[in-house]
């Protein structure tokens, strides 16, 4: 029973250096059963390093790295995970069924080849050589390989790159199903709507640190900006000079503004242009929140450096 309270994966004050470069600078991260954590951040933020540590590919220079309470380099811990890496190219001449059969053989009680293929929507591709598949199909094969061992924790590195919208939606359904069955997932993605749609928790990294962690809503709320769009004859350059407006630009027929004080801005807009129409006010999306957070982290870092 004690095993149930143990986090599935965790990093505690983890440090990793590559020569003089500090890739991870005291990262804390914890993942519970059945939880989907999205790991976001610009390239070089330390996401791949964090995942490489949890997969046992590299060793930490400081702090703790645990998978199911064990060292990830312990094969027993890794028998409980499934992995989909963005950068791996699989043997081109092997058939899809052969790849699944091989991967399943590494696990103590895997799903059947047929079941794994059906879950990933590739049951019709089993006899095809891997090299003859489209990019999106190859990603789905990799997804089938990741889930074939009945993992309790899945690592999905940019799982939907190269997929069309339909395939992406199907993969999302499959991921949600796995999570509902109690599988935990670490997802890295550049598609913020993917994180928004799937994640229980979002962890934003920059410069080797976790700069924000929480629910998608909490992350969005951290950024107070709202988005105001409308059709108006007012000039965006003029609008940008108003104190209420942070940024303004023309987007097709509409003008688009971001603001910290939507109510005051809307009042002033309506006064200034009686013919204004199609007014919309929206909370900032994850994309804006993300840009804002990483920019803060970068300028903060720049100031640190100047002060030093």
């Amino acid at each position, binding site marked *: 029973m004690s*095993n*149930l309270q143990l986090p599935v994966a965790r990093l505690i004050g983890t440090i990793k250096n590559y020569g003089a470069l500090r890739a991870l600078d005291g990262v804390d991260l914890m993942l519970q059963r059945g939880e989907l954590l999205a790991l976001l951040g610009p390239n070089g933020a330390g996401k791949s390093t964090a995942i490489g540590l949890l997969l046992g590919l590299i060793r930490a220079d400081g702090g703790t790295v645990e998978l199911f309470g064990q060292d990830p380099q312990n094969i027993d811990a890794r028998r409980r995970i499934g992995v989909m890496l963005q950068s*791996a190219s699989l*043997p081109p001449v092997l058939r899809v069924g052969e790849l699944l059969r091989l991967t399943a*053989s590494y696990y*103590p009680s895997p799903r059947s080849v047929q079941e794994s293929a059906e879950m990933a929507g590739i049951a019709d591709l089993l006899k095809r050589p891997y090299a003859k598949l489209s990019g999106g199909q190859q990603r789905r094969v990799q997804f089938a390989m990741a889930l074939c061992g009945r993992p309790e924790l899945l690592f999905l590195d940019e799982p939907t790159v190269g997929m069309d919208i339909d395939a992406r939606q199907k993969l999302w359904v499959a991921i949600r199903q796995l999570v509902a069955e109690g599988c935990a997932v670490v997802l890295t993605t550049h598609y913020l709507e993917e994180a928004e749609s799937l994640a229980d928790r979002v962890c934003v990294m920059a410069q080797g640190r976790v700069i924000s962690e929480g629910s998608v809503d909490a992350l969005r709320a951290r950024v107070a900006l709202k988005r105001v769009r409308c059709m108006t004859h007012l000039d965006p350059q003029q609008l940008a000079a108003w104190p209420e407006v942070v940024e303004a630009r023309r987007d097709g027929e509409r003008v688009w503004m971001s603001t910290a004080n939507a109510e005051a801005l809307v009042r002033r807009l309506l006064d200034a242009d009686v013919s204004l129409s199609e007014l919309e006010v929206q909370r900032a999306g994850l994309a804006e929140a993300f840009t804002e957070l990483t920019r803060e982290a970068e300028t903060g870092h720049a100031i640190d450096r100047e002060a030093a």
Partner: protein
Amino acid sequence: MNAVTNEFAVVPAAVAMSPQRVVAAYLEEIRSECLRYLRTPSFLLPTLLFPTVFYLMFGIFLGHANGPDAPRFFLAAYGTFGVMAPGLFGFGVSLAMERDNGLLMLKRALPMPPAAYLLGKMVMALIVAAVIVGLLLLMAILLAHAPLSATQIVTMFFTCVFGVLPFCGMGLFVGSLIKGQGAPGAINLIYLPMAFLSGLWFPLSILPSFLQQLGPVWPSYHLNQLALNAVGLGHGEVLTHVGVLAIYTVFFAVTAVRRLRRHG
């Protein structure tokens, strides 16, 4: 509340891997490696054709010009030359490629039994070596009518099959040093000069004396001596040659595995 049937509770704390499943994983890895190479003509064709075509030309058609021992001499030479390739290329090139394209990284992240990757490639190299030396022996017996006893045939076969191992070690070592597309060229730079300097194409006695003295440096020289012994043209000292090859194999394999552990 005690009756809560938590579905997680039925999942065993740690699912143990039965010994049968571990063996099955090794066998699956071996099967996949063999399938991959059988389906890769750019590896298989040169590996099989070079030694057999050379043997046909120099050992059989032009053999008689080189004296009565030529079919057996060239059987030993091209047997050695032939089994160097699956070891050097099968291990070296594929390891260099797979370190570069992320496959090795994925395999290390997956719970693949740690030795399965190398064992799979090793068994593949042993099988390809068996095919090569088998073909050469058939040609020697049926086409060249080389005077070989049954013992000599069997000894020659197993000498060459297990003779692939030092070259697996060497390929592993080179593959742990270089990465990516440059590997086939680099391996050829080792393969061809080494074959030449070990006296596989011309008897060492016609080379300049300092190159002759360099002969025993190369693993292929020792395998060739063993193969010559097997077909009845050798000078003995079997244990010395076996010992040197064993030392080479262990040295290359240990150095390479250490490097791979550290650098991936």
